[in-house]
């Protein structure tokens, strides 16, 4: 009899795992709580490092699903172990599965928690995700008044490397996202001055350093210092303060738009499912695998696997790789 695998989460991690398990001949049920597939990537305009449209990645994953049974708008409320199998309760229906893959991803750091940055208080303080929506809808950023911005500041590490908001870890991808968005702003509005406030620029992936250099050559100014606070001034503009740490002097400037580079936070719903399944969480709140180095997809609960950003901040490439690895580990488990 064909064995069934339940995958929780229809973002990049879930879609790739589903695709692989499908091609290995399993019956795959993919649960997605929202009404669309693709997760956060589906809400992004273009991707680093090559500015490819995110929709291409999402459609390539959704179009290669074969016989995967995708259940969108379906929230998994509980997962229970029963005689070596799993009973997944979702939208008041029960589904049976031989193995479960958690691919629940992350949620964006709620920027209003950094109250001193003014998100939700000042109309021209936006997040990196808001900026992507502006690119999707209008191809360029605009002030809340509709005016064209002539000065934009990107603030790195919002909800990352910050113990004051219980996010001490680095979210990995925001540095390069800020650099990508800075370039996109320069391309869309060439006379717009663009500033990046950073602590360290973590350009770890292929093509990231090139992107940084491209931003420099396009005139993006990098200031090494963390934002201390922002305040609204006339015309809805925003005054920001930081230390220019390389010059050891306090710095203030006014800008038309402040873009907060929000980090990746653990998905709140996931911790409940993790508790159901007896999984442990890392200190940062993401799900712990059996062995970080040699067994990053298996958990201490037999038949339950993890993949993608529910294990910690990740980019698309690493998530797809993790998903392929997870599919293989599920296959090894089920064919034992």
């Amino acid at each position, binding site marked *: 009899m064909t064995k069934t695998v339940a995958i929780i989460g229809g973002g990049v991690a879930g879609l790739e795992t589903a695709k692989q398990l499908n091609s290995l001949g399993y019956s795959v049920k993919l649960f997605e709580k929202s009404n669309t597939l693709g997760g956060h990537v589906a809400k992004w305009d273009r991707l680093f490092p090559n500015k490819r449209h995110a929709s291409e990645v999402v459609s390539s994953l959704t179009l290669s699903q074969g016989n995967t049974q995708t259940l969108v708008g379906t929230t998994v409320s509980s997962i229970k172990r029963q005689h070596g199998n799993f009973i997944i309760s979702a939208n008041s229906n029960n589904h049976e599965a031989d193995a479960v893959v958690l691919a629940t991803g992350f949620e964006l750091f709620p920027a209003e928690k950094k109250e001193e940055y003014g998100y939700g208080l000042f109309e021209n303080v936006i997040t990196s995700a808001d900026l992507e929506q502006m690119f999707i809808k209008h191809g360029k950023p605009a002030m809340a008044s509709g005016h064209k911005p002539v000065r934009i500041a990107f603030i790195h590490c919002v909800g990352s490397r910050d113990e004051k908001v219980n996010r001490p870890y680095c979210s990995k991808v925001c540095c390069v996202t800020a650099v990508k968005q800075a370039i996109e702003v320069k391309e869309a509005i060439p006379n717009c001055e663009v500033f990046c406030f950073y*602590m360290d620029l973590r350009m770890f992936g292929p093509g990231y350093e090139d992107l940084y250099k491209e931003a420099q050559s396009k005139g993006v100014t990098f200031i090494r*210092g*963390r934002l201390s*606070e922002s305040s609204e001034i006339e015309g809805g503009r925003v005054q920001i303060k930081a230390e220019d*740490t390389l010059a050891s002097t*306090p710095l203030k400037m006014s800008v038309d738009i402040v873009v907060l580079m929000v980090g990746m936070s653990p998905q709140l719903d996931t911790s409940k499912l993790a508790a159901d399944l007896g999984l442990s969480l890392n200190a940062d709140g993401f799900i712990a695998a059996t062995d970080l180095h040699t067994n990053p997809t298996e958990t201490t609960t037999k038949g339950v696997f993890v993949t993608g950003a529910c294990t910690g901040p990740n980019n698309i490439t690493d998530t797809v790789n993790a998903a392929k690895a997870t599919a293989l580990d599920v296959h090894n488990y089920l064919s034992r």
Partner: protein
Amino acid sequence: MIDFGFTPFAAGVTDLDKANLSLAKQITEHEPSFNLCISCGSCSATCTAGQFTKFSFRVMCHQIRKGNTTLAIEEASKCMLCGKCTLICPRNVNTRNIIRLVRKAQTTTP
């Protein structure tokens, strides 16, 4: 010998072979969070004293790590202990206690 006009250790060059790092060691012992600074500059940007003087908590810590104790002690006197830097520090460095320890060193240094 021709004088080319430069020496291996000109004034202002940090020489960590000769630096006196005793204050840094003393502070670390009593306040281990002293070592956790990532030089983000939040403390200096938000500093009340820094609005009126050239005081920078971050730079003061940096001077201590380079052994410029006298300079650091001088700097510490500018702090008003308002505590804003403690509230903003993303690494939870106990900035007030570090100021207290530097001032204590001031009274014990001959």
